[in-house]
């Protein structure tokens, strides 16, 4: 199989600037050389490729849309999206790492942190020297985070955290956790550093999905954190939700990368796999599947490109992000399943990547707001009636 050339049926490249294309191609080159050769083995062995983190930092891929003065690359949101696309062409686990680090850890510190917190954490998180995680979801509060049980109590000198967070990407490898807890009934953000007494982060093992990514539980038992570790600008659940909007924006782009990898693999396979003395690509049922894939990738590309332009203009609405996340992830998963179909028995072998993407996308479809919750967010936006409270 030749080098991946991207998928661009509608000359969407002509809508990108030279710099956006150069950024995408540079990340693609890195993924091709450093990620693809090792990712399958990491996935099989359920290991996160930690050695790639400093390289991602060096290239500026972490929190890349945040300002230069905090050590970030300060690129626009379309270029940021293209990075997510290329990372997820490697693996959803790698993109998840970057999404959490940038959108769920660096973004809230940048937006609601004190100047001191920003100066300390952002350059270290941008370089990959420090790793972060984001604790919002709890064992009993997934789609309904407002019901969270984790509390913070002001005991005069410190805050005391109690509770547990669940399904936390990067949890066990994180140096700092952005934890959301109720202080006097109001959801606030706190920075909890690794090693703080009363804080532990056991890894969730034996996953069928996102195996090249670390997923953990965060446990707080009378965990005492310094007063200056509260994110001073936070004032409610809406802050946590706006982090999710940032991350979902990247996911909508990322899913396209996984879809492109599967489409590319299925197309190549169908052109070379001979049955009944002809390449299987000559059969109508295979062409139907391939066209569906290309069709949905092309629509998804135009969707996120316009979303990115709106974000850069400051006009993006969170319901638009929900629409893009639900659409692109849904179709990416369908594309991965179809690619696996086309590959038939070979599709279950680790020689091919489509089934790894398929298993990953099963998580991506229900994390960061399930597909159904995003449907209801858009539903509320257009009808004015909330269907989930």
């Amino acid at each position, binding site marked *: 199989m030749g080098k991946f*050339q991207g998928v661009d049926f509608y000359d969407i490249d002509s809508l990108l600037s030279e*710099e956006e294309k*150069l950024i995408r191609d540079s990340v693609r080159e890195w993924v091709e050389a450093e990620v693809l050769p090792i990712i399958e083995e990491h996935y099989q062995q359920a290991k996160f490729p930690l050695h790639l983190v400093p390289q991602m930092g060096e290239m500026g891929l972490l929190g890349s849309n945040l300002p230069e003065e905090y050590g970030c690359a300060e690129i626009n949101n379309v270029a940021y999206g293209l990075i997510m696309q290329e990372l997820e062409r490697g693996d959803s686990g790698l993109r998840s790492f970057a999404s959490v680090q940038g959108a769920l850890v660096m973004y809230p510190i940048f937006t609601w942190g004190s100047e001191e917190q920003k100066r300390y954490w952002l350059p270290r998180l941008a370089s990959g020297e420090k790793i972060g995680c984001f604790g919002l979801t709890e064992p009993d509060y997934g789609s309904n985070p407002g019901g969270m049980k984790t509390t913070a109590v002001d005991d005069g000198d410190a805050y005391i955290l109690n509770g547990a967070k669940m399904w936390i990407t990067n949890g066990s490898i994180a140096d700092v956790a952005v934890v959301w807890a109720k202080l006097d009934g109001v959801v606030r953000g706190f920075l909890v550093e690794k090693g703080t007494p009363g804080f532990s982060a056991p890894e969730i093992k034996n996953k069928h999905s996102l195996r090249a990514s670390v997923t953990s539980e965060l446990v707080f038992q009378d965990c005492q954190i310094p007063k200056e570790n509260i994110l001073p600008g936070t004032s409610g659940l809406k802050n946590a939700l706006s982090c999710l909007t940032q991350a979902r924006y990247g996911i909508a782009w990322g899913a396209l990368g996984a879809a492109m990898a599967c489409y590319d693999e299925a197309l190549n396979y169908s052109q070379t796999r001979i049955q009944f003395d002809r390449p299987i690509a000559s059969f109508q049922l295979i062409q139907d599947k391939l066209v569906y894939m290309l069709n949905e990738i092309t629509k998804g590309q135009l969707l996120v490109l316009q979303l990115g332009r709106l974000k850069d203009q400051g006009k993006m609405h969170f319901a638009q992000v929900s629409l893009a996340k639900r659409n692109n992830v849904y179709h990416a998963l369908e594309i991965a399943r179809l690619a696996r179909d086309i590959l038939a028995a070979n599709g279950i072998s680790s020689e091919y990547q489509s089934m790894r993407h398929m298993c990953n996308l099963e998580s991506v479809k229900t994390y960061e707001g399930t597909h159904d919750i995003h449907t209801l967010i858009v539903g509320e936006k257009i009808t004015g009636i909330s269907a989930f409270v």
Partner: protein
Amino acid sequence: MNIAVCVKQVPDTETRPKIDPSGKKMSEEGVKWILNPYDEFAVEEALQLVEKNGGEVTVISLGPAAVEPTIRAALAMGAQKAIRIEAEENPADPLVTAKALAEVLKQGNYDLIFFGKQAIDDDYAQVPQMVATALDLPCATVVVKLDIEGEKLTVEREIEGGKEKLSLSMPAVISAQKGLNEPRYRSLKGIMKAKKIPIETVQVELASGQLEIEKVKFPPEKQPGKIVGKGADAVPELVRLLHEEAKVI
């Protein structure tokens, strides 16, 4: 150190070439362009030298404005300056390119002039040597190792079946081979910085070409393989076919 790196924009290695209706060149339609891969080794070596010894790296390319993305790609690796020599298209005759480059290079007072060992589109591998001749400078081609001590330059170059070690005085012209170094990945910061560097455009009168391409064509299609038999009995027939038909032994 003051270093120049001459780079060329070439079609991506994955391009499926089509022949232009003129029959004299490759069609440029739908081609994705990249920085010539050997030039990346040249840029990397130059960057490492200035990182160690101080100085600056100037990227130079000849061509229309359409080659500027490639110049930016080289700048994004970390070069400080860029010059584009205006030309409507890439000259078919490498001597024309070499003369134009030499014209610009002689004004730059460079300690070292780097090239990739060849461009992967026309594969001539002539321009570095021609430039060195035009500037009356020593030249080492196909270089896989380079050391500098004071004013003395020591290089290793690949030759058939081995390596050759040369010492040269500076200034000198070097053409880079794969193995010289491991080119860095372009960082986002590098890309953003490169965006702000002005590319100086210079006009040079191009010499008329003395070489003309008459025709380009695809290699003949590969014939399917042939099984001549099995076991030791088949050997004489195989030898005969290799000798008489394939004419390889």
